Protein backbone atom coordinates (compact mmCIF):
# COMPACT_ATOMS: atom_id res chain seq x y z
CA UNK A 1 0.00 0.00 0.00
CA UNK A 2 1.50 3.36 -1.00
CA UNK A 3 1.12 6.45 1.20
CA UNK A 4 -1.20 9.08 -0.27
CA UNK A 5 -1.88 11.60 2.49
CA UNK A 6 0.58 13.42 4.72
CA UNK A 7 -1.28 14.77 7.69
CA UNK A 8 -0.53 17.10 10.57
CA UNK A 9 -2.17 16.62 13.98
CA UNK A 10 -4.32 19.47 15.32
CA UNK A 11 -1.54 20.59 17.67
CA UNK A 12 0.92 20.76 14.77
CA UNK A 13 -1.02 23.58 13.09
CA UNK A 14 1.26 26.61 12.62
CA UNK A 15 0.73 29.21 15.38
CA UNK A 16 1.92 32.22 13.38
CA UNK A 17 1.30 33.63 9.92
CA UNK A 18 4.30 34.50 7.80
CA UNK A 19 4.64 38.03 6.40
CA UNK A 20 6.84 38.05 3.28
CA UNK A 21 7.02 41.88 3.48
CA UNK A 22 9.65 41.44 6.20
CA UNK A 23 12.02 39.65 3.80
CA UNK A 24 11.63 41.50 0.49
CA UNK A 25 15.13 42.42 -0.75
CA UNK A 26 13.71 45.56 -2.38
CA UNK A 27 10.89 47.38 -0.63
CA UNK A 28 7.59 47.80 -2.40
CA UNK A 29 6.35 51.21 -3.41
CA UNK A 30 3.61 52.28 -1.02
CA UNK A 31 0.15 52.87 -2.44
CA UNK A 32 -0.59 56.54 -3.05
CA UNK A 33 -3.63 58.54 -2.03
CA UNK A 34 -5.32 59.38 -5.35
CA UNK A 35 -6.16 62.94 -4.26
CA UNK A 36 -2.88 63.95 -2.60
CA UNK A 37 -0.38 61.68 -4.34
CA UNK A 38 1.12 61.00 -0.92
CA UNK A 39 1.57 57.54 0.60
CA UNK A 40 -1.66 56.20 2.07
CA UNK A 41 -1.91 56.36 5.87
CA UNK A 42 -3.80 53.95 8.12
CA UNK A 43 -6.48 56.57 8.79
CA UNK A 44 -7.30 56.66 5.06
CA UNK A 45 -8.64 53.12 5.36
CA UNK A 46 -10.37 53.40 8.74
CA UNK A 47 -13.75 53.98 7.14
CA UNK A 48 -13.77 50.40 5.85
CA UNK A 49 -11.28 48.35 7.89
CA UNK A 50 -10.79 48.10 11.65
CA UNK A 51 -7.41 49.29 12.89
CA UNK A 52 -6.23 45.78 13.86
CA UNK A 53 -6.54 44.67 10.22
CA UNK A 54 -4.99 47.92 8.94
CA UNK A 55 -2.00 47.18 11.19
CA UNK A 56 -1.59 43.82 9.46
CA UNK A 57 -1.94 45.49 6.06
CA UNK A 58 1.04 47.78 6.73
CA UNK A 59 3.09 45.49 8.97
CA UNK A 60 6.73 44.70 8.32
CA UNK A 61 6.83 42.15 11.13
CA UNK A 62 7.91 38.70 9.94
CA UNK A 63 5.72 36.54 12.18
CA UNK A 64 2.27 37.42 13.42
CA UNK A 65 0.61 35.31 16.10
CA UNK A 66 -2.59 33.56 15.10
CA UNK A 67 -5.16 34.14 17.88
CA UNK A 68 -6.42 31.02 19.67
CA UNK A 69 -10.01 31.80 18.63
CA UNK A 70 -8.95 31.79 14.97
CA UNK A 71 -6.95 28.58 15.39
CA UNK A 72 -9.97 26.92 16.99
CA UNK A 73 -12.07 27.76 13.93
CA UNK A 74 -9.26 26.72 11.54
CA UNK A 75 -9.23 23.29 13.24
CA UNK A 76 -12.64 22.55 11.74
CA UNK A 77 -10.75 21.59 8.57
CA UNK A 78 -7.13 22.52 9.06
CA UNK A 79 -4.41 21.44 8.91
CA UNK A 80 -5.50 20.56 5.36
CA UNK A 81 -4.09 17.31 3.98
CA UNK A 82 -1.11 17.16 1.68
CA UNK A 83 -1.77 14.51 -0.94
CA UNK A 84 0.53 12.70 -3.31
CA UNK A 85 -1.20 12.55 -6.70
CA UNK A 86 0.00 9.05 -7.57
CA UNK A 87 -2.76 8.40 -10.14
CA UNK A 88 -2.08 11.66 -11.96
CA UNK A 89 1.64 10.87 -11.97
CA UNK A 90 0.93 7.49 -13.60
CA UNK A 91 -1.31 9.15 -16.17
CA UNK A 92 1.37 11.69 -17.11
CA UNK A 93 4.15 9.10 -17.20
CA UNK A 94 6.81 11.68 -16.35
CA UNK A 95 9.65 11.59 -13.80
CA UNK A 96 7.80 13.68 -11.19
CA UNK A 97 6.44 13.37 -7.70
CA UNK A 98 3.34 15.57 -7.42
CA UNK A 99 2.12 16.79 -4.04
CA UNK A 100 -0.83 19.06 -3.47
CA UNK A 101 -2.45 20.94 -0.61
CA UNK A 102 -6.14 20.08 -0.70
CA UNK A 103 -7.87 23.37 0.18
CA UNK A 104 -11.17 22.02 -1.10
CA UNK A 105 -11.82 20.38 2.28
CA UNK A 106 -12.93 23.65 3.89
CA UNK A 107 -16.67 24.03 4.51
CA UNK A 108 -16.84 26.64 1.73
CA UNK A 109 -14.90 24.37 -0.60
CA UNK A 110 -11.85 26.55 -1.15
CA UNK A 111 -8.96 28.42 0.46
CA UNK A 112 -11.07 31.55 1.00
CA UNK A 113 -12.06 30.84 4.63
CA UNK A 114 -8.36 31.00 5.64
CA UNK A 115 -8.72 34.79 5.29
CA UNK A 116 -12.43 35.16 6.00
CA UNK A 117 -12.15 33.66 9.49
CA UNK A 118 -9.47 36.06 10.81
CA UNK A 119 -11.20 39.00 9.15
CA UNK A 120 -14.46 38.22 10.92
CA UNK A 121 -12.60 37.65 14.20
CA UNK A 122 -10.59 40.88 14.09
CA UNK A 123 -13.69 42.86 13.16
CA UNK A 124 -15.59 41.38 16.07
CA UNK A 125 -12.71 42.19 18.44
CA UNK A 126 -12.62 45.77 17.15
CA UNK A 127 -16.32 46.24 17.90
CA UNK A 128 -17.62 45.98 14.32
CA UNK A 129 -21.30 45.06 14.36
CA UNK A 130 -21.83 44.22 10.69
CA UNK A 131 -19.74 43.39 7.61
CA UNK A 132 -20.31 44.00 3.90
CA UNK A 133 -18.55 42.67 0.87
CA UNK A 134 -18.97 42.06 -2.84
CA UNK A 135 -18.73 38.80 -4.76
CA UNK A 136 -18.88 37.58 -8.34
CA UNK A 137 -20.05 33.99 -8.54
CA UNK A 138 -19.89 33.67 -4.78
CA UNK A 139 -16.65 31.96 -3.73
CA UNK A 140 -15.63 34.87 -1.50
CA UNK A 141 -19.16 35.81 -0.44
CA UNK A 142 -19.94 32.31 0.79
CA UNK A 143 -16.66 32.04 2.73
CA UNK A 144 -17.25 35.38 4.45
CA UNK A 145 -20.87 34.47 5.20
CA UNK A 146 -19.68 31.34 6.98
CA UNK A 147 -16.96 33.19 8.90
CA UNK A 148 -19.27 36.00 10.02
CA UNK A 149 -21.78 33.49 11.36
CA UNK A 150 -18.99 31.86 13.39
CA UNK A 151 -18.33 35.16 15.17
CA UNK A 152 -21.93 36.36 15.39
CA UNK A 153 -21.64 39.14 12.82
CA UNK A 154 -24.44 39.97 10.37
CA UNK A 155 -23.11 39.95 6.83
CA UNK A 156 -24.43 41.50 3.64
CA UNK A 157 -22.98 40.36 0.32
CA UNK A 158 -23.51 42.35 -2.86
CA UNK A 159 -23.44 39.75 -5.61
CA UNK A 160 -23.02 40.72 -9.27
CA UNK A 161 -26.51 40.34 -10.70
CA UNK A 162 -25.65 38.18 -13.71
CA UNK A 163 -23.96 35.65 -11.40
CA UNK A 164 -26.73 35.95 -8.79
CA UNK A 165 -29.13 34.79 -11.48
CA UNK A 166 -27.08 32.16 -13.25
CA UNK A 167 -25.25 30.61 -10.29
CA UNK A 168 -27.79 30.34 -7.46
CA UNK A 169 -26.10 27.68 -5.31
CA UNK A 170 -23.47 29.90 -3.71
CA UNK A 171 -26.05 32.50 -2.72
CA UNK A 172 -28.05 29.66 -1.20
CA UNK A 173 -24.93 28.75 0.77
CA UNK A 174 -24.68 32.35 1.96
CA UNK A 175 -28.32 32.31 3.06
CA UNK A 176 -27.80 28.98 4.81
CA UNK A 177 -24.96 30.55 6.75
CA UNK A 178 -27.19 33.46 7.69
CA UNK A 179 -25.94 36.20 5.38
CA UNK A 180 -28.02 38.50 3.21
CA UNK A 181 -27.17 38.20 -0.45
CA UNK A 182 -28.26 41.15 -2.60
CA UNK A 183 -28.18 41.24 -6.41
CA UNK A 184 -26.06 44.22 -7.48
CA UNK A 185 -26.87 46.81 -8.75
CA UNK A 186 -29.48 47.30 -6.05
CA UNK A 187 -31.72 50.07 -4.80
CA UNK A 188 -30.06 49.89 -1.38
CA UNK A 189 -27.23 52.29 -2.22
CA UNK A 190 -26.79 55.49 -4.18
CA UNK A 191 -24.16 53.77 -6.32
CA UNK A 192 -26.66 51.06 -7.22
CA UNK A 193 -29.52 53.52 -7.80
CA UNK A 194 -27.34 55.60 -10.12
CA UNK A 195 -26.61 52.58 -12.29
CA UNK A 196 -30.23 51.43 -12.33
CA UNK A 197 -31.42 54.93 -13.28
CA UNK A 198 -29.34 54.77 -16.46
CA UNK A 199 -29.39 51.04 -17.10
CA UNK A 200 -32.40 49.38 -15.44
CA UNK A 201 -31.38 46.04 -16.98
CA UNK A 202 -27.74 46.26 -15.96
CA UNK A 203 -26.24 42.77 -15.43
CA UNK A 204 -23.91 44.31 -12.83
CA UNK A 205 -20.17 44.17 -12.46
CA UNK A 206 -17.61 43.77 -9.71
CA UNK A 207 -16.91 47.49 -9.88
CA UNK A 208 -20.55 48.31 -9.12
CA UNK A 209 -20.77 45.66 -6.40
CA UNK A 210 -17.60 46.96 -4.70
CA UNK A 211 -18.99 50.50 -4.79
CA UNK A 212 -22.22 49.32 -3.18
CA UNK A 213 -20.47 47.30 -0.47
CA UNK A 214 -18.12 50.16 0.42
CA UNK A 215 -20.87 52.79 0.38
CA UNK A 216 -22.90 50.57 2.71
CA UNK A 217 -19.92 50.27 5.09
CA UNK A 218 -19.03 53.97 4.97
CA UNK A 219 -22.58 55.22 5.51
CA UNK A 220 -23.81 52.70 8.09
CA UNK A 221 -22.61 52.98 11.70
CA UNK A 222 -20.45 50.15 13.07
CA UNK A 223 -20.19 48.50 9.65
CA UNK A 224 -16.94 47.51 7.99
CA UNK A 225 -15.96 46.01 4.66
CA UNK A 226 -13.97 42.88 3.81
CA UNK A 227 -12.34 41.72 0.61
CA UNK A 228 -11.07 38.31 -0.34
CA UNK A 229 -7.84 38.86 -2.22
CA UNK A 230 -5.12 41.23 -3.42
CA UNK A 231 -4.35 43.14 -0.22
CA UNK A 232 -1.35 42.36 1.98
CA UNK A 233 -3.34 41.24 5.01
CA UNK A 234 -5.25 38.68 2.91
CA UNK A 235 -2.01 37.14 1.68
CA UNK A 236 -0.68 37.15 5.23
CA UNK A 237 -3.63 35.08 6.50
CA UNK A 238 -3.35 32.69 3.53
CA UNK A 239 0.27 31.88 4.43
CA UNK A 240 -1.13 29.13 6.69
CA UNK A 241 -1.30 27.00 3.51
CA UNK A 242 2.40 27.14 2.70
CA UNK A 243 3.46 26.94 6.35
CA UNK A 244 1.57 23.67 6.76
CA UNK A 245 2.94 22.39 3.43
CA UNK A 246 6.46 23.16 4.62
CA UNK A 247 5.93 20.99 7.73
CA UNK A 248 4.28 18.22 5.73
CA UNK A 249 7.12 18.08 3.19
CA UNK A 250 9.58 17.99 6.09
CA UNK A 251 7.78 14.89 7.45
CA UNK A 252 8.61 13.21 4.13
CA UNK A 253 12.20 14.47 4.24
CA UNK A 254 11.58 16.24 0.95
CA UNK A 255 11.80 19.78 -0.43
CA UNK A 256 9.97 20.77 -3.63
CA UNK A 257 11.84 21.66 -6.80
CA UNK A 258 8.81 23.63 -7.99
CA UNK A 259 5.98 25.31 -6.06
CA UNK A 260 2.92 26.23 -8.09
CA UNK A 261 -0.42 27.92 -7.69
CA UNK A 262 -3.09 29.57 -9.80
CA UNK A 263 -3.16 33.37 -9.83
CA UNK A 264 -6.44 35.23 -9.78
CA UNK A 265 -6.07 37.96 -7.19
CA UNK A 266 -3.01 36.15 -5.87
CA UNK A 267 -4.13 35.08 -2.40
CA UNK A 268 -4.14 31.29 -2.75
CA UNK A 269 -0.95 31.38 -4.77
CA UNK A 270 0.81 33.61 -2.25
CA UNK A 271 -0.59 31.43 0.51
CA UNK A 272 1.25 28.35 -0.70
CA UNK A 273 4.23 30.18 -2.14
CA UNK A 274 5.41 32.86 0.30
CA UNK A 275 6.98 30.54 2.89
CA UNK A 276 8.99 29.05 0.01
CA UNK A 277 9.73 32.51 -1.39
CA UNK A 278 11.29 33.21 2.01
CA UNK A 279 13.60 30.23 1.49
CA UNK A 280 14.40 31.37 -2.05
CA UNK A 281 15.25 34.87 -0.86
CA UNK A 282 17.68 33.26 1.59
CA UNK A 283 19.40 31.24 -1.14
CA UNK A 284 17.38 28.04 -1.52
CA UNK A 285 17.01 26.76 -5.06
CA UNK A 286 13.31 26.44 -5.77
CA UNK A 287 11.23 27.48 -8.77
CA UNK A 288 7.98 29.23 -7.96
CA UNK A 289 5.37 29.41 -10.70
CA UNK A 290 2.10 31.33 -10.85
CA UNK A 291 -0.41 30.12 -13.47
CA UNK A 292 -2.46 33.00 -14.73
CA UNK A 293 -5.75 33.00 -16.58
CA UNK A 294 -4.99 34.90 -19.71
CA UNK A 295 -5.14 33.92 -23.32
CA UNK A 296 -1.88 35.52 -24.27
CA UNK A 297 1.27 33.85 -22.92
CA UNK A 298 3.53 36.60 -24.20
CA UNK A 299 1.94 39.08 -21.83
CA UNK A 300 3.52 37.38 -18.92
CA UNK A 301 7.01 37.64 -20.33
CA UNK A 302 7.19 41.41 -20.38
CA UNK A 303 8.23 43.92 -21.65
CA UNK A 304 4.96 45.17 -20.33
CA UNK A 305 5.55 45.18 -16.62
CA UNK A 306 5.43 48.90 -16.08
CA UNK A 307 2.88 51.05 -14.40
CA UNK A 308 1.11 52.73 -17.25
CA UNK A 309 -0.49 55.22 -14.89
CA UNK A 310 2.91 56.82 -14.29
CA UNK A 311 3.83 56.70 -17.94
CA UNK A 312 0.63 58.43 -18.99
CA UNK A 313 1.60 61.49 -16.96
CA UNK A 314 4.88 61.88 -18.79
CA UNK A 315 3.88 60.79 -22.28
CA UNK A 316 0.22 61.63 -22.74
CA UNK A 317 0.34 60.94 -26.46
CA UNK A 318 1.44 57.32 -25.98
CA UNK A 319 -2.02 55.83 -25.46
CA UNK A 320 -3.16 57.45 -28.67
CA UNK A 321 -0.57 55.59 -30.71
CA UNK A 322 -2.74 53.46 -32.90
CA UNK A 323 -1.23 50.85 -35.16
CA UNK A 324 -4.14 50.38 -37.46
CA UNK A 325 -6.17 47.67 -35.83
CA UNK A 326 -3.21 46.35 -33.93
CA UNK A 327 -3.32 48.70 -31.03
CA UNK A 328 -3.44 46.98 -27.73
CA UNK A 329 -4.86 49.21 -25.06
CA UNK A 330 -2.47 50.47 -22.45
CA UNK A 331 -4.12 48.54 -19.60
CA UNK A 332 -2.57 45.45 -21.17
CA UNK A 333 0.76 47.20 -21.42
CA UNK A 334 0.77 47.44 -17.68
CA UNK A 335 1.54 43.75 -17.55
CA UNK A 336 -0.66 40.76 -17.07
CA UNK A 337 0.01 40.32 -13.41
CA UNK A 338 0.66 43.94 -12.47
CA UNK A 339 -2.46 45.36 -13.94
CA UNK A 340 -5.23 42.87 -13.74
CA UNK A 341 -6.12 43.14 -10.08
CA UNK A 342 -3.10 41.09 -9.03
CA UNK A 343 -1.84 41.38 -5.48
CA UNK A 344 0.95 44.00 -5.35
CA UNK A 345 3.12 41.57 -3.38
CA UNK A 346 2.83 38.97 -6.16
CA UNK A 347 3.48 41.57 -8.87
CA UNK A 348 6.53 42.77 -6.97
CA UNK A 349 7.88 39.22 -6.61
CA UNK A 350 7.37 38.67 -10.35
CA UNK A 351 9.28 41.87 -11.15
CA UNK A 352 12.05 40.81 -8.75
CA UNK A 353 12.13 37.43 -10.53
CA UNK A 354 11.28 35.31 -7.51
CA UNK A 355 8.12 34.14 -9.24
CA UNK A 356 7.72 32.97 -12.80
CA UNK A 357 4.30 33.69 -14.30
CA UNK A 358 2.83 31.40 -16.95
CA UNK A 359 -0.42 31.75 -18.87
CA UNK A 360 -2.70 28.94 -20.02
CA UNK A 361 -5.76 29.23 -22.21
CA UNK A 362 -9.05 28.02 -20.85
CA UNK A 363 -9.54 24.90 -22.98
CA UNK A 364 -6.09 23.60 -21.96
CA UNK A 365 -6.96 24.23 -18.34
CA UNK A 366 -10.25 22.34 -18.55
CA UNK A 367 -8.47 19.51 -20.33
CA UNK A 368 -6.04 19.27 -17.42
CA UNK A 369 -8.87 19.50 -14.90
CA UNK A 370 -10.81 16.67 -16.51
CA UNK A 371 -7.65 14.50 -16.64
CA UNK A 372 -7.21 15.23 -12.95
CA UNK A 373 -10.83 14.42 -12.05
CA UNK A 374 -10.68 11.16 -13.98
CA UNK A 375 -7.49 10.05 -12.24
CA UNK A 376 -7.55 11.55 -8.75
CA UNK A 377 -11.33 11.74 -8.36
CA UNK A 378 -11.62 15.26 -6.97
CA UNK A 379 -13.26 17.71 -9.38
CA UNK A 380 -11.32 20.98 -9.35
CA UNK A 381 -12.73 24.48 -9.40
CA UNK A 382 -12.21 25.93 -12.90
CA UNK A 383 -9.72 28.40 -11.38
CA UNK A 384 -7.71 25.50 -9.97
CA UNK A 385 -7.48 24.04 -13.46
CA UNK A 386 -4.94 26.72 -14.36
CA UNK A 387 -2.40 25.35 -11.94
CA UNK A 388 -3.17 21.81 -13.14
CA UNK A 389 -2.28 22.90 -16.68
CA UNK A 390 0.95 24.30 -15.24
CA UNK A 391 1.64 21.03 -13.40
CA UNK A 392 1.19 19.08 -16.65
CA UNK A 393 3.49 21.56 -18.38
CA UNK A 394 6.14 21.18 -15.68
CA UNK A 395 5.88 17.39 -15.76
CA UNK A 396 6.45 17.43 -19.53
CA UNK A 397 9.46 19.68 -19.04
CA UNK A 398 10.86 17.19 -16.52
CA UNK A 399 10.41 14.43 -19.09
CA UNK A 400 12.17 16.46 -21.82
CA UNK A 401 15.00 17.35 -19.48
CA UNK A 402 15.25 13.76 -18.23
CA UNK A 403 15.26 15.14 -14.71
CA UNK A 404 13.24 14.00 -11.71
CA UNK A 405 11.29 16.78 -10.07
CA UNK A 406 9.25 17.20 -6.94
CA UNK A 407 6.24 19.42 -7.59
CA UNK A 408 4.15 21.01 -4.85
CA UNK A 409 1.02 22.91 -5.76
CA UNK A 410 -2.08 24.37 -4.17
CA UNK A 411 -5.35 22.68 -5.10
CA UNK A 412 -7.28 25.81 -4.25
CA UNK A 413 -10.84 24.51 -4.35
CA UNK A 414 -13.38 22.02 -5.60
CA UNK A 415 -15.70 22.55 -8.55
CA UNK A 416 -18.82 20.86 -7.21
CA UNK A 417 -20.80 24.11 -7.16
CA UNK A 418 -19.41 25.07 -10.55
CA UNK A 419 -20.34 22.10 -12.68
CA UNK A 420 -22.09 24.38 -15.17
CA UNK A 421 -18.60 25.41 -16.28
CA UNK A 422 -17.72 21.78 -17.03
CA UNK A 423 -21.07 21.39 -18.78
CA UNK A 424 -20.20 24.36 -21.02
CA UNK A 425 -16.77 22.84 -21.69
CA UNK A 426 -18.17 19.40 -22.62
CA UNK A 427 -20.82 21.02 -24.85
CA UNK A 428 -18.08 22.88 -26.73
CA UNK A 429 -19.50 26.25 -25.68
CA UNK A 430 -16.29 27.70 -24.23
CA UNK A 431 -14.43 29.79 -26.77
CA UNK A 432 -11.56 28.06 -28.46
CA UNK A 433 -8.49 30.04 -29.31
CA UNK A 434 -8.19 30.41 -33.07
CA UNK A 435 -5.82 33.29 -33.67
CA UNK A 436 -2.66 31.74 -35.04
CA UNK A 437 0.59 32.32 -33.22
CA UNK A 438 2.11 34.31 -36.08
CA UNK A 439 -0.77 36.84 -35.89
CA UNK A 440 -0.18 37.28 -32.18
CA UNK A 441 3.55 37.66 -32.68
CA UNK A 442 2.98 40.26 -35.40
CA UNK A 443 0.72 42.33 -33.16
CA UNK A 444 3.13 42.12 -30.25
CA UNK A 445 6.15 42.95 -32.38
CA UNK A 446 4.40 46.12 -33.41
CA UNK A 447 4.62 47.43 -29.85
CA UNK A 448 7.86 45.85 -28.69
CA UNK A 449 9.71 49.16 -28.69
CA UNK A 450 7.31 50.85 -26.29
CA UNK A 451 9.37 52.41 -23.48
CA UNK A 452 10.04 50.50 -20.31
CA UNK A 453 10.88 51.88 -16.88
Amino acid at each position, binding site marked *: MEQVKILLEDQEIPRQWYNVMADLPTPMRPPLHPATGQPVTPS*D*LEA*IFPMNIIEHEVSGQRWIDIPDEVLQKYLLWRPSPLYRARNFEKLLGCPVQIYYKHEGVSPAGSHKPNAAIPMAYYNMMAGTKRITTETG*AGQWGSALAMACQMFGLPCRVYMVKVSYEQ*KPYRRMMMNTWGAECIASPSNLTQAGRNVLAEHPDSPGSLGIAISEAIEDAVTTPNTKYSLGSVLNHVLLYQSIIGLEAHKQMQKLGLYPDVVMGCCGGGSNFAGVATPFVCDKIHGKEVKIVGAEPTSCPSMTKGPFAYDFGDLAKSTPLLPMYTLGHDYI*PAPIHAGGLRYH*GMAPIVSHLVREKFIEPRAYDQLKTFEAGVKWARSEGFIPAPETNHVLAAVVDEAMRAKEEGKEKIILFNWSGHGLVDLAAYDAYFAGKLQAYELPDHEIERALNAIKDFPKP
Partner: protein
Amino acid sequence: MKTEHDHKLIRCPKLGDEMTFGYCLQEAGDLPCPRIVSCWFRAFDVAKVLDEHLTSEQRQRFALGAPGDKVSSLIEIIERAKKPS
Protein backbone atom coordinates in the same frame (compact mmCIF):
# COMPACT_ATOMS: atom_id res chain seq x y z
CA MET B 1 -22.58 48.04 -28.78
CA LYS B 2 -23.34 44.84 -30.74
CA THR B 3 -20.76 42.64 -32.44
CA GLU B 4 -20.75 39.27 -34.20
CA HIS B 5 -18.82 37.85 -31.23
CA ASP B 6 -21.30 38.81 -28.51
CA HIS B 7 -22.51 35.26 -27.90
CA LYS B 8 -19.05 33.73 -27.43
CA LEU B 9 -18.43 32.36 -23.96
CA ILE B 10 -15.43 32.47 -21.68
CA ARG B 11 -14.71 31.75 -18.03
CA CYS B 12 -14.42 35.21 -16.49
CA PRO B 13 -11.44 35.28 -14.11
CA LYS B 14 -12.89 38.26 -12.19
CA LEU B 15 -16.35 36.83 -11.55
CA GLY B 16 -15.54 33.12 -11.52
CA ASP B 17 -18.41 32.57 -13.92
CA GLU B 18 -19.01 31.97 -17.63
CA MET B 19 -19.61 35.24 -19.44
CA THR B 20 -20.25 36.28 -23.02
CA PHE B 21 -18.09 38.69 -25.01
CA GLY B 22 -21.17 40.91 -25.07
CA TYR B 23 -20.94 41.21 -21.27
CA CYS B 24 -17.23 41.97 -21.44
CA LEU B 25 -17.89 44.80 -23.89
CA GLN B 26 -20.00 46.73 -21.40
CA GLU B 27 -18.57 45.56 -18.08
CA ALA B 28 -17.27 49.02 -17.17
CA GLY B 29 -20.41 50.97 -18.14
CA ASP B 30 -19.86 52.45 -21.59
CA LEU B 31 -16.38 50.90 -21.72
CA PRO B 32 -15.25 47.28 -21.94
CA CYS B 33 -13.70 45.38 -19.07
CA PRO B 34 -9.99 46.32 -18.81
CA ARG B 35 -9.11 42.63 -19.24
CA ILE B 36 -11.02 42.24 -22.50
CA VAL B 37 -7.98 42.08 -24.77
CA SER B 38 -5.93 39.77 -22.56
CA CYS B 39 -8.89 37.40 -22.09
CA TRP B 40 -10.00 37.28 -25.73
CA PHE B 41 -6.74 37.97 -27.53
CA ARG B 42 -6.28 34.49 -28.93
CA ALA B 43 -9.91 33.92 -29.84
CA PHE B 44 -10.26 36.61 -32.51
CA ASP B 45 -8.84 40.02 -33.36
CA VAL B 46 -10.41 41.74 -30.35
CA ALA B 47 -8.32 44.89 -30.77
CA LYS B 48 -9.83 45.32 -34.23
CA VAL B 49 -13.32 44.83 -32.80
CA LEU B 50 -12.66 47.54 -30.23
CA ASP B 51 -11.24 49.83 -32.89
CA GLU B 52 -14.40 49.41 -34.93
CA HIS B 53 -16.88 49.79 -32.09
CA LEU B 54 -15.39 52.36 -29.71
CA THR B 55 -15.41 56.06 -30.46
CA SER B 56 -12.01 57.76 -30.37
CA GLU B 57 -12.99 59.34 -27.03
CA GLN B 58 -13.86 55.91 -25.65
CA ARG B 59 -10.61 54.46 -26.97
CA GLN B 60 -8.64 57.18 -25.23
CA ARG B 61 -10.48 56.67 -21.94
CA PHE B 62 -10.05 52.92 -22.25
CA ALA B 63 -6.35 53.19 -23.04
CA LEU B 64 -5.75 55.60 -20.16
CA GLY B 65 -7.96 53.78 -17.73
CA ALA B 66 -5.37 51.67 -15.84
CA PRO B 67 -6.93 51.26 -12.42
CA GLY B 68 -3.65 51.35 -10.60
CA ASP B 69 -3.24 50.21 -7.07
CA LYS B 70 -6.09 48.40 -5.28
CA VAL B 71 -5.67 50.44 -2.10
CA SER B 72 -5.79 53.68 -4.10
CA SER B 73 -8.93 52.56 -5.88
CA LEU B 74 -10.56 51.62 -2.56
CA ILE B 75 -9.81 55.12 -1.25
CA GLU B 76 -11.38 56.65 -4.37
CA ILE B 77 -14.54 54.65 -3.74
CA ILE B 78 -14.53 55.62 -0.03
CA GLU B 79 -14.26 59.32 -0.91
CA ARG B 80 -17.09 58.99 -3.43
CA ALA B 81 -19.26 57.21 -0.86
CA LYS B 82 -18.67 59.97 1.70
CA LYS B 83 -19.98 62.68 -0.62
CA PRO B 84 -23.63 63.60 -0.05
CA SER B 85 -25.91 62.14 -2.76
